[in-house]
Each structure stands twice: as structure tokens, then as C-alpha cells.
């Protein structure tokens, strides 16, 4: 479902080339649960950005769901990102002035879905995630765990092909973090492809397949 072929990413920093990724090959099957681990500066974040279409490889190709997405324009990439990828971030990244329900609704709004359809989908997901009662609350009125559930609901609302979770428990206590991971794993159990990016070996160890990044290269891919 996800295939990276010989992907490199080079940044120019202060006149010097920094090779964040060097000739990475990676294949991820539909429904897989895979963790990408590595110390900071190993190319982990660059990998996430490229998988999430937030960044383009300097060379190589990225095939998502049978489509070469490296050749797409910015507008087309936005569409692919909206429809096929769900992000879960360490810092939740909820819009502070919008309610939980409105945050979850946001991808549907961007996609131009009609209000009736939106409301129904949002309420179904919030109910499923056990936060329906908090639908009208703003992020600052929610606990960390609730915020991350809202963020996961938002990632799921478009029924994407894969969820990219970037240190999803990094900002939560152990218990809440555990609940969030269970929620993600439950989604994976229902067939959702789950890519977990973390520097936490214990967390990463839970995935069925582990990839390590080191110095821009990938081991175990």
C-alpha cells in the first residue's frame, strides 16, 4: 500500500548539505502495524513528513495506494493527504477556538461535505470513542487523553488509508497514554494501517514490525 523506492531527502543548512534520508526503500502492506523508531536527528521526522505528503523527497518515488504521489501538484497532494492520511500529533494540534466536534469535523469541512452528513459522522465517531458528552467543549476544557481522542477521531473521520501517529503518547501520562495506544491498536485490529513514529523502544516494540532509522538509513525495512 505504501512503497518508498530509493527515497532521499537532502536539506541545505548554512551552505552545507544534510542528508536526512539516504536511499530509503520501504514497503508497508494494508492493515499493517509498524513502528518507526530512532533517536532524534536520525531521519525519523523527515520520514513522517514524506509519508504524510508534508514534504517531497529530493529523489526517489513514493507510491501510495497504487498511485505515484511524488509527481502530483501541491493541490493534488492536498487532496490525497485529506482523503488517505490521518495524522495524530504529540501536541494534539487541535484548533483552540473550535469545539471538539468542530475540530473533528474540520477535514469534512475542507472536503466540502454537507452539514447534515458531517454532523452524523462526527457524532458517530465521538460516541464510539466515548467522548460524545464532550462534543461541545473546547480543547482547553478537555483532559490530555480526551484531546488525543478528539485528534484521533479527526484523523479517522475521512476513513483514511493509513494513520501516521507521531509520538501520540509523548505528552500524556502512562495510564492515559496506554488508553490512547489501545484505541489506535483497536483501529488497526479493524484493518486500519497504523504507522507509529516514536523514540520510545517499549512503545515501538508493541508494533508487529519495527523499523529503525539511523543516520538517514533504514534498518528492518
Amino acid at each position, binding site marked *: 500500500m505504501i512503497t518508498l523506492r530509493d527515497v532521499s531527502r537532502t536539506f541545505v543548512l548554512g551552505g552545507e548539505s544534510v542528508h536526512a534520508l539516504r536511499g530509503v526503500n520501504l514497503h508497508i502492506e494494508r492493515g499493517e502495524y509498524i513502528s518507526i523508531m530512532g533517536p532524534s536527528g536520525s531521519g525519523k521526522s523527515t520520514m513522517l513528513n514524506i509519508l504524510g505528503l508534508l514534504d517531497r523527497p529530493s529523489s526517489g518515488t513514493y507510491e501510495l495506494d497504487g498511485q505515484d504521489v511524488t509527481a502530483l501538484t501541491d493541490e493534488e497532494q*492536498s*487532496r490525497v493527504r485529506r482523503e488517505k492520511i490521518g495524522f495524530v500529533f504529540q*501536541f494534539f*494540534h487541535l484548533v483552540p*477556538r*473550535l469545539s471538539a466536534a468542530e475540530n473533528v469535523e*474540520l477535514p469534512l469541512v*475542507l*472536503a466540502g461535505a454537507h452539514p447534515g452528513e458531517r454532523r452524523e459522522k462526527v457524532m458517530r465517531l465521538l460516541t464510539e470513542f466515548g467522548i460524545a458528552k464532550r462534543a461541545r467543549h473546547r480543547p482547553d476544557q478537555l483532559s490530555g487523553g480526551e484531546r488525543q481522542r478528539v485528534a484521533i477521531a479527526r484523523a479517522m473521520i475521512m476513513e483514511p488509508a493509513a494513520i501516521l501517529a507521531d509520538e501520540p503518547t509523548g505528552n500524556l501520562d502512562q495510564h492515559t497514554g496506554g488508553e490512547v495506544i489501545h484505541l489506535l491498536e483497536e483501529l488497526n485490529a479493524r484493518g486500519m494501517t497504523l504507522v507509529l513514529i516514536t523514540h520510545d523502544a517499549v512503545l515501538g516494540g508493541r508494533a508487529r514490525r519495527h523499523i529503525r532509522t539511523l543516520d538517514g538509513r533504514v534498518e528492518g525495512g
Partner: protein
Amino acid sequence: MLTPDIAHFAWRSLEGARTRSLLMVLATSIGVAAVVVLTSLGEGARRYVRNEFESLGTNLIIILPGRAETVGGGAALASGRTAHDLTIEDAMALRRIRGIEHVAPLNLVEGEVSARGRRRDVPISGSSSEIQHIWGLSTASGKFLPPQDPRNAAPHCVLGSKVARELFGTESPLGQYVRLGDRRFRVIGVLAPKGEFVGVNMDDMVIIPVASAQVLFNLSSLLRVGVMTRSREDVPPVKAEIARLLRERHGGEDDVTILTEDAISSAFDRILVALTFALGGIAAVSMAVAGILIMNVMLIAVAQRTSEIGLLKALGASPRQIRFLFFAEAVLLSAVGGVLGSVVGQAGSFVIRRLFPAVPAFAPLWAVSGGLALAIATGVAFSVVPARRAAALDPALALARR
């Protein structure tokens, strides 16, 4: 993204930054209010002048000797030298034209009037009984010049209210004599106070028969002939007929200038419309200042909302959508500011109308709608740069961990 969603989202983010939004609304509304108030002043001046001219009588025609190239200029009033004089006989001939109500020949000379050892320098008009209707004069005592052949140089006069008082005090001047040059004139009437009219103070005026004035000051030509038509509709045909008749009498030469109230006031009209445009333009400068403020504040907003923009991109917002969201904010702000500004501006012109009832200060429609359109255009134009900057943000950087 659906249009109501764009508007709603933009509205929510404006609500989220209340002070900033209010400042921008304020800047825009000051700009629009300035346009509305200043143009309403210009328009008020235009209507004021137009009303003044209409008080002259809209069915008035003035004939001057000499051919003026431009209409309504001072040159025509000053130039008196031509091949043919405009004579009392010319004026009398006009009487035959259908549609004419009154014809009054006129000479106007600055001269000395004296009585009982008192002297005054005053404007002296030589005219006929009909000037009373053209100038709208009435007598306070005695009577006006009697209707008679204008070639008759009768030795009687009518005094303005002020000159009568200055020469005779509280005594009645009727039947008394005043001296003009080397001749004596019997006072047959005193005008009711009227004040300034067509740039001359009627209360200072001494009016004598036109033939007497020509003899007294050795004039061969009239200064002008005033004609009043029966109605406003009669003005164009009467004007054409006057031109034809005088050409015939002057040996086929077009050597007179014929002015109508319309032509004079429309010349002023054009000037004052230009003035109103200029005032509107000056006010529009304040809009440019508002635009720069909007741009500045929007740029700050983009910087403050970097992570939100990154998030929107991660959720699949295209660069185009991001631009639209920022445009929508600018349009909303400037529309609200524009509407508010025109309301404030209208209130301002209402206050002006209250304070100066003579000046009908109504903002012209083009200024109100133009001000609104300009406000929105300014909002959009000055949000291009911030919107582009937002759309060009690298989402990976924008979302980077803190």
C-alpha cells in the same frame, strides 16, 4: 469547501482575535466615513450653488454685447467693444418675440450721488420698469420707475433703502431731489431692503431710466439686456429667436453673447462635481492607510497562526483554500468596516445638515457605493501578500515540535 463554511470559519477566527479585528474594522470604517462625509460636503456645496442660481429665476436670459468663446466666463462680462453696440432699440425689438414676458435694458456705472451736501459713491443702474420683475424688487414707499418708452431720459430715480437712509436720514426722500453728475433727479420711490443679489448690494443702488444713464455717462451701448420668458420651456426657442433677431439687426454678425441660467449654473456644477471627486480622492488616501494597517495586522496573524495553518494543511487544506480563508477574513472585516463607516458617514452628513441648513450635504450614491467597494477592494488587495505567505508555509516546519 462550501462558501458558508469558509465564511463561518473566517468569522470564528476573527472572533478569536477580537482586538485585532476591531482595530481593522475601525481603520476601514474611518476611511469609508471620510469618503462619505467629504463627498457629502462637496455635493452640499454643489446643491447650494445650484439653489442660489435657481433663485435668480430659471427662465432668465442675459444678453451681453460681444462674442464670448467660452460660456459663463468673466471675459464675456468684461468685453464691451464690438462692431455693433447693443442698443436700447435692440432691447425694444426683442419685445416682439413670442414667449418673452419682460425685457429690461441695463447699464451699470459706479458714480456719485449727492443730496443736501452728503455724497455717496454707489452703483447706478440705468434700466426700465421691467427690471423690477427680473430682479424681484419691491418698493418700501413711493413707486418704481413707471412703464414708458425707454428712450425717454426722464429725470427721476428710485433709491436703495440704505442710500436713502444715508442721504435723507429719517425724513422721507419722496419728491426730493438728488444730484447725479450734473443733473438733478426727483426721487419717486425707495426700495425695500433686499441685500446682496447677483454680487451687487441692492440697498446701495440708485436706479434711473436707461436713457438718462446713457446721457449722463455718455454711453452708446448697453451693459446687458435681461430677458424673462413666460416659462422655463420657453427659454431655448426664445434664445434662438433672440440670436436670429439680433444677427439680422447687426448686419448678419453674431456679435452678442446670450447666457441662460442653465449654462451658468451647469458651468459651476461641473466645477463642483470635480471638487467633490477631488475630496473623495483625498478621503480615499485614508483608505490606503487602512489597507496598509490591514496588511500589517494580517501578517502578524499569519505569524501567530503558523501552527494552525500547518495543521490545516496536514488535514488536507490546499494552498488555494488557505488563501481563500485569509481573503474571506479580509473581505468580512472590510465589509463590516465599510458598512459601519458608511453609517457613521451618513450620521456625519446629517449633523452637517443640521448645523448648516443652507448646505444640503447629502453624500452622492456613487460615493457611498464607491467607498464600500473601495473598502472591500482594499481589504482584498492588502491581504494578497499575507494570504500568499500563509499558503506558502511549509507544513512540516509549521507543525514542528515546540
